[in-house]
């Protein structure tokens, strides 16, 4: 009999702040995710060439304000079925428009606790993608 080892979802966390990475890593790991972390865009892109991600969490500000959005767009093109969460300063029309237009699944505010973000992500994973894929 053939058996296939089941693994938890593989998640990429991209954030410029090491404390935030650590919090998200901890919360997502508790939810059964396998985590790859990146603190800058080149590392995130390198990670995308070496892994198949089910979940991607990106700060809208990685190195500078707004640079997380195009990264979300690139990740959506590479992993069209992946859940993509973006952490932004606040949820306004511009942020929500950026999320839609860059293929993000959900927007979180910077003030949200890592456990809250992880919980929302883990709830959404099975139904994340109705979009172009």
């Amino acid at each position: 009999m053939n058996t296939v080892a089941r693994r938890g979802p593989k998640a990429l966390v991209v954030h410029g702040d090491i404390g935030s990475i650590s919090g998200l890593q901890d919360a997502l790991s508790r939810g059964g995710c396998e985590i790859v972390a990146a603190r800058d865009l080149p590392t995130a892109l390198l990670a995308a060439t070496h892994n198949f991600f089910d979940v991607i969490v990106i700060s809208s500000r990685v190195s500078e304000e707004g640079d997380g959005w195009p990264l979300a767009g690139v990740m959506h093109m590479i992993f069209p079925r992946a859940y993509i969460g973006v952490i932004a300063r606040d949820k306004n029309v511009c942020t929500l428009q950026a999320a839609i237009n860059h293929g993000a699944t959900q927007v979180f505010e910077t003030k949200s606790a890592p456990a809250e973000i992880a919980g929302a992500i883990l709830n959404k994973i099975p139904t994340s993608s109705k979009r172009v894929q």
Partner: protein
Amino acid sequence: MLIVDDESNVARTLKMVFEREGFDVQTAFSCAEALKLLDRKPPLDVVITDLNMEREDIGLEVARAAQKLKKPPVVVICTGYANTSNAQEALDMQVDYLATKPADLRELLTALRRLLAMRGAAQRGLAQ
């Protein structure tokens, strides 16, 4: 492509622009009219809909119905009245693109071509 807007000038202008770019364009001037045209043959590749027509945010119903089609088209909302509530709903529905009026047509066209290419690639992948 189906363009839905209760302002006939806007719908006709968009039709002219997209026809010049090679799209076969149909227009509808209300949600009710759009819902009748969604299930046409050959299936639509793109639906661009206004939000506020017969009532506020009714364009989301067009988007929702389009997403339920057997072969869902790329769904674009084009509105002058985006707010946190309808934009959040559009994100929750996983609409493909949100353009605010006056829309940058060059940018919209670029986005459409990218979204159509992604969809085409995915469909070719599924067929293999």
